């Protein structure tokens, strides 16, 4: 059991994967599932049909206005089905099922990009984008439809080496194993985004990661910020305040307006791989653990691999599972079944044993004020929860800063009435966004 510090001085005890687990390459999956929409954003245009043979790395979906990176087939095989699949957040999403033929065949020969440090930034950016990697969200980048002058420039790039600040075994191990590549990746990102300065935020307790980063000579290119990490410091708003000493205006502000952009260690590495090896991003790094998992592991897996295969790779389950969670125990998403796929941004699969699932009914707020004390962005979760529970969404937004909430989950964690405050807040935000869409349509 390890202690994770929470905002406000409490801590939470949780079983984390032991440090130093080597990142293993997972065997290619027999079949993959690829959702054709990106969490609430627009859907992809499909480039293949049912029954068609696809090869590894073939582009199978792209966004019509280039606001999202394209999707590639992570394996070679046959498209067996295209149908709606239910995902935990949002409704049904059209998904592509591909069955492997076991050949791992690429469509064309891979063309590694040579002398990449001498290429033009636009060209490098094109390669990275076509490889399906987002260093920072693509809408914020200058692109042919936007002019370079209207797009905000990225003066500071912050590389988040603390993840969601929940131990983050995989990020730590990536820093240990691939700090040399990270160095080259940072130089590339600097060239692509034309940044003034790069920051790398690391946990001050992760000595092995810091040692490896120092050994690689990374500090000549990036300022290494050693942080005393508490949950939820990894959220951009709080990390920004910690590094720059300023707050992002809320709720309508964005870090990019202040010239700062946030990215992750693995995004930088994927961008580097895409340029150096000339192949699209087909895999993602993740760690697997939780009370019900036999052997915790750090893995490099194909995107779209069903969770069942991942769990089998980790030796299966040792006791009855209660919840299957992608993300952290405080803000992740509980999966509906083991058929759900690994997504591009999955970094942690956490399997909670059934015995530790709390199934209390929630009750009325008793007004103890614990959530107000612990809220890291200082909104009043008790009132937000009450207002959103009874449909007063607009009041919640106007009077109690609904959109300032970062949904870290601490309020619901401490609530003695077991109120699903984060759920109410998400409901409020969702309803207001629907209203906004309706008004925009008029």
């Amino acid at each position, binding site marked *: 059991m390890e202690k994770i510090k929470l905002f406000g001085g409490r801590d939470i005890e949780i079983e984390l994967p032991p440090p130093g687990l080597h990142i293993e390459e997972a065997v290619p999956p027999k079949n993959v599932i690829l959702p054709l929409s990106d969490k609430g954003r627009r859907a992809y245009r499909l480039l293949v049909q049912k029954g068609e043979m696809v090869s590894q790395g073939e582009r199978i979906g792209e966004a019509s206005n280039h606001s999202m990176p394209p999707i590639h087939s992570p394996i070679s095989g046959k498209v067996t089905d295209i149908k709606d699949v239910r995902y935990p957040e949002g409704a049904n999403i059209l998904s592509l099922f591909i069955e492997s033929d076991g050949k791992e065949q690429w469509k064309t020969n891979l063309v590694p990009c040579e002398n990449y440090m001498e290429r033009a930034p636009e060209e490098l950016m094109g390669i990275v984008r076509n490889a399906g990697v987002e260093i920072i969200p693509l809408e914020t980048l200058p692109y042919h439809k936007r002019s370079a002058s209207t797009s905000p420039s990225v003066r500071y790039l912050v590389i988040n080496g603390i993840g969601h600040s929940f131990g983050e075994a995989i990020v730590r191990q990536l820093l240990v194993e691939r700090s040399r590549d990270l160095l080259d990746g940072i130089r590339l990102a600097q060239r692509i985004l034309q940044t003034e300065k790069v920051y790398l935020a690391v946990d001050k307790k992760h000595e092995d990661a810091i040692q490896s980063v120092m050994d690689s000579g990374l500090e000549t290119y990036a300022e290494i910020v050693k942080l005393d990490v508490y949950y939820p410091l990894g959220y951009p708003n709080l990390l920004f305040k910690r590094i720059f000493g300023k707050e992002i205006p809320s709720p309508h*502000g964005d870090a990019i307006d202040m010239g700062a952009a946030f990215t992750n260690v693995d995004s930088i590495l994927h961008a580097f791989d895409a340029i150096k090896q000339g192949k699209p991003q087909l895999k993602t790094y993740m760690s697997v653990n939780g009370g019900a998992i036999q052997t915790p592991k750090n893995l490099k897996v194909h995107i779209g691999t069903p969770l069942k295969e991942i769990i089998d790779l980790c030796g299966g389950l040792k006791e009855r599972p209660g919840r299957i969670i992608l993300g952290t125990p405080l803000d992740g998403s509980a999966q509906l079944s083991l058929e759900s796929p690994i997504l591009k941004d999955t970094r942690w699969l956490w399997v909670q044993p059934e015995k530790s699932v709390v199934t209390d*009914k929630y009750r009325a707020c008793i007004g103890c004020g614990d959530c107000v004390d612990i809220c890291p962005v200082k909104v009043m979760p008790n009132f937000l929860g009450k207002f959103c529970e009874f449909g007063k969404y607009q009041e919640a937004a106007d009077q109690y800063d609904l959109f300032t909430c970062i949904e870290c989950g601490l309020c619901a964690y401490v609530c003695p009435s077991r109120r699903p405050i984060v759920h109410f807040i998400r409901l409020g935000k969702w309803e207001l966004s629907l209203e906004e869409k309706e008004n925009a349509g008029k």
Partner: protein
Amino acid sequence: MQANNYRFYVSYPPYLLGRKTVSGIMYQNLIALFPAAVMALYYFRAGALKVMLFSVLTALICEIGMQKLLKRDIRISDGHAILTGLLFAFLLSPAVPWWLVVVGSGAGIILGKMIFGELGNNPFNPPLVGWVMVRLSWSDKLNDWVAPVGVWNTDPPLEIFKLDGLDTFMAYGYQVFDLFIGKQAGGMGTICIIAILAGGVYLLLRRIISWHIPIGLLGAVFVFGGILWLTDKQANLNPIFHLIAGSTMLGAFFLATDPATSPVTRWGKLSYGIICGVLIMVIRTWGTYSDGVAFAILLANTSVPLLNKIRPRAYGKEKGVA
């Protein structure tokens, strides 16, 4: 073990929950009240037991009846009814008739809590609602004080001070230590200050209550009383006596800190404690009631919605923007 054929819980985050629960808060409060209850039994023997039993049983029966009547979930096991009944009994003299205990305790649960819905929606502290009702209706019966074991004087110190003045009070020769261990007439659970303090410190250590309300309340009583005392030592009581006589201590640690009827933010809690303390002193100095803690806390309860407007600046907001 194969990963097939399992059904999973699907729910909103977070998937880990803290250990503190509503029933936990109530039972911790009961544990904290235990020393005071034992001391009440020691000082008043069977009389105290009778009142406490009647009060707690009435509270339980009224709560279960109201929850059935209003078709709500039966939440009797969360301990709030027991706590309400016990706190109500603590405010009474052991000599009150049984029907008065039943009426007050029932009114506390029904009028103080259940007609507003569930715990948390009630604007006023339930035991105090019951107490104020019986106090205003049958004040002669309620003022039928009994001397605890080892004490001959049947009048509470503050009553003596209020009715007979400071000289008489001084003539009785009250010792601070005697009051501390409970050698005074008064509400059966309020007299033994040391037992209540022990319970209050326990609650503070277990983080069931925060220090803001008790410190605000006791500090305001002490400072207000001190100013009065310094301006005219011939007419006013030493502020130490204001703290250890009457139900100030019980109010500070157990009545004013009731989560449902106190503000949520730290500054709000501190202001609420100060308002309680000032009102206690105003009632004691210029009002007709000798103790006034119950009325002060009930009055301060009405300020809670306003005090909830005191809140920290949200992230990314400029100062002065609500």
